[in-house]
């Protein structure tokens, strides 16, 4: 299952896939270097995973044409681990991340994505774009005017060059031109070579050099758990985006497993954990990539370029990478969501904005998504709670309360407030034929109402419990079990 693919997956679109793969590989180099720098490791680490992950994903992935690699979302979570414990612990944490993701795939946790609403996805994407942009700021502070000029020129080339020529990737042109200028003018600007070690050979298999004991596990466990969650979240969201763009389905659980396998593989050749990338996947689809071949090409081309063009890669000024990364962040951000703030309901906008705010504050996308999902669920509960009404009618000495709609934790208080206990009555009928009791809170609310009426000397009859309501009341209710009533009233 994990390796199954059709001929069409691989060879259905050879020309488009190969061209798109090359375009993606060119755009992956600056990203991989930039994200390694964010994580605080040598560019080599990001570059190794930037070629290893796409190659593994080409074979195992559940979403053809989606690009996975080392990403900013993951890199941000690694910062403290690398700072405190070093690269070897990062590699070990990457292995564990992969194992967690593999397990998640087998437990079919990919389907949990249904709880992540559209506004949370938008918030995630926007937060990601902001994080990528913010990660560029250190390169733009306390520098000479040359850097600003180069970055501006780079952005100009990226967005204006396509008007001249649509067959050469403009980010590549930007990198080549800026490198040439800075070498020619001997500009004193930071280059990729200054940022750390670049790969000088093909990677080799290595086992992370760490003591295998409980202390190590306790150090890496929290990081791995966070990385696994963030990696899967971004991958699942990207998969949905690619599904929408290409109008083809994907296998989300297979994608989870594949992310795990890719992260395990990449850490054994000295790469950092990664996940799917929204920006690169959009570039791939836009360039005409649709099949597994596009991902494979991206990985292989990237490997060849990095290993054989190393001396040139080290000369690339950081300003050129910053320009490319600003492009990625602009392309990732959902600008339309800002315009939509005016038209969408406030509750969904709040979800989106809260997701963004939490991510920007914590630098952890998982917390943002959790907040978003929580607010969205509360919103939903509040809305459903409105679907509850109680009306009443007095006939002689009997009052009939008619309850309709959904009674659960969010509507239980309002439900109780509809009953008037001051009224001196012989008999009360509570008609719940058209109501549904969802949980223990609602059942105990009904219980309290019944008991309170009985205390006032009123006879209570509950009428027309539908079957679903009856099962919940039967399981949790106390009002028709005398000994339980005693317990409940014990404190009064």
């Amino acid at each position: 299952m994990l390796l199954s693919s059709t001929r069409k997956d691989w060879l259905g679109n050879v020309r488009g896939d190969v061209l798109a793969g090359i375009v993606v590989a060119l755009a992956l180099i600056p990203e991989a270097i930039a994200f390694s720098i964010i994580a605080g490791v040598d560019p080599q680490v990001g570059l190794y995973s930037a070629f290893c992950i796409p190659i593994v994903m080409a074979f195992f992935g559940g979403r053809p044409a989606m690009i996975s690699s080392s990403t900013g979302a993951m890199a941000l979570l690694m910062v403290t681990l690398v700072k405190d414990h070093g690269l070897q612990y990062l590699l070990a944490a990457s292995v564990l991340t992969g194992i967690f993701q593999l397990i998640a795939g087998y437990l079919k946790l990919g389907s949990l994505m249904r709880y992540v609403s559209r506004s949370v996805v938008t918030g995630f994407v926007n937060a990601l774009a902001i994080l990528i942009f913010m990660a560029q700021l250190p390169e733009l502070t306390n520098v000479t005017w040359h850097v600003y000029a180069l970055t501006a020129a780079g952005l100009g080339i990226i967005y204006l060059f396509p008007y001249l020529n649509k067959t050469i990737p403009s980010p590549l042109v930007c990198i080549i031109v800026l490198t040439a200028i800075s070498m020619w003018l001997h500009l004193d600007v930071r280059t990729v070579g200054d940022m750390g070690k670049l790969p000088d050979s093909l990677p080799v298999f290595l086992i992370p050099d760490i003591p295998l004991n409980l202390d190590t596990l306790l150090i890496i466990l929290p990081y791995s758990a966070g990385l696994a969650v963030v990696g899967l979240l971004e991958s699942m969201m990207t998969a949905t985006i690619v599904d929408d763009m290409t109008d083809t389905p994907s296998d989300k659980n297979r994608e989870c497993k594949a992310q795990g396998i890719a992260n395990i593989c990449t850490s054994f050749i000295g790469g950092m954990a990664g996940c799917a990338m929204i920006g690169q996947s959009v570039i791939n689809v836009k360039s005409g990539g649709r099949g597994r071949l596009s991902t494979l090409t991206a990985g292989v081309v990237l490997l060849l370029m990095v290993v054989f063009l190393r001396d040139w890669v080290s000369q690339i000024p950081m300003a050129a990478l910053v320009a490319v990364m600003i492009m990625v962040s602009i392309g990732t951000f959902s600008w339309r969501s800002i315009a939509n703030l005016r038209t969408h309901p406030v509750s969904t906008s709040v979800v989106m904005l809260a997701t963004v705010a939490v991510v920007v504050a914590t630098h952890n996308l998982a917390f943002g998504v959790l907040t978003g999902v929580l607010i969205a669920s509360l919103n939903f509960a509040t809305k459903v709670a409105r679907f509850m009404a109680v009306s009443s009618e007095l006939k002689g000495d009997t009052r009939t309360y008619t309850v309709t709609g959904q009674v659960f934790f969010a509507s239980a208080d309002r439900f109780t407030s509809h009953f008037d206990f001051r009224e001196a009555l012989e008999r009360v009928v509570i008609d719940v034929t058209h109501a549904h009791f969802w949980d223990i809170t609602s059942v105990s609310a009904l219980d309290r109402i019944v008991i309170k009426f009985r205390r006032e000397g009123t006879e209570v009859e509950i009428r027309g419990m539908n079957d679903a309501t009856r099962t919940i009341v039967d399981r949790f209710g106390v009002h028709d079990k005398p000994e339980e009533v005693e317990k409940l009233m014990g404190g009064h």
Partner: protein
Amino acid sequence: MNNTVIACVDGSPSTRPVCEYAAWAAGKLDVPLALMHVLEKNDPPAVSDLTGAIGIDSREQLTEELVRVEGERSRLLMAQGKTVLADCAALLKQCGYPDAQMLQKHGALDEILAELGDIRLMVLGRRGSHNPVGSHLESVIRLQKRPVLVVPETFSPPSQVMFAYDGSEASRENLNRMTVSPLLNGLNCHLIMVNGEAETLKDAQEILQSAGIITEARLLNDKSVTSALCRYADENDIDLTVMGAYGHSRLHRFFIGSHTAEMLAESRQPLLMLR
């Protein structure tokens, strides 16, 4: 779609024989007939822009453009398919099938056929639009649990049938299935085995004879199973070959090759593939 003969048409030169063979089979089996046209998305992507730059709302703009271009393309293909289906229905009317069902679906042919469930027989043209043997055929046949009739570009009503027998369990099973099927009623059956044992062949012949099928058994010896079968078919005016299909995995096929693939490439008669 229970118990129906499905004719897969696409407007290529083999569309006409597909309809004719389907009509022949539906007549023999006395079951309803349906025409199927599938709109596949295997063209190169409608939008391809190698600039590699993404800007404000690139994602949304790309999606919108793809929806527009692909929608336009699909509308044209759908109309074209409807014409093909109407032409085929007219042809079937001439053959005496006025009420063939017409189906049009989006997706991959192999998956759609596999999802149809309990169909009786599917009829496909052998020739693809680019290759002498259609590129879909293998995946279509592999995914099915139902018989597939692969037909050449001309129709001739079958009268001499060749059953390719290899003595395997699957092959014997197929033989039993033939004895209960009305498809071969009244046809002359040649039971052919290549490089096997005479006794196995004799047992098989008895199965057919006890079912009342006129048979002629022949044991051939040749280095190549496929060329022996094809030569026999040409020499004896065979006009339908019945065989098991893709008994081995794709991996086996990759390293060792497959008789089914060779037969598809070399045989000039229609092939009834039993799964």
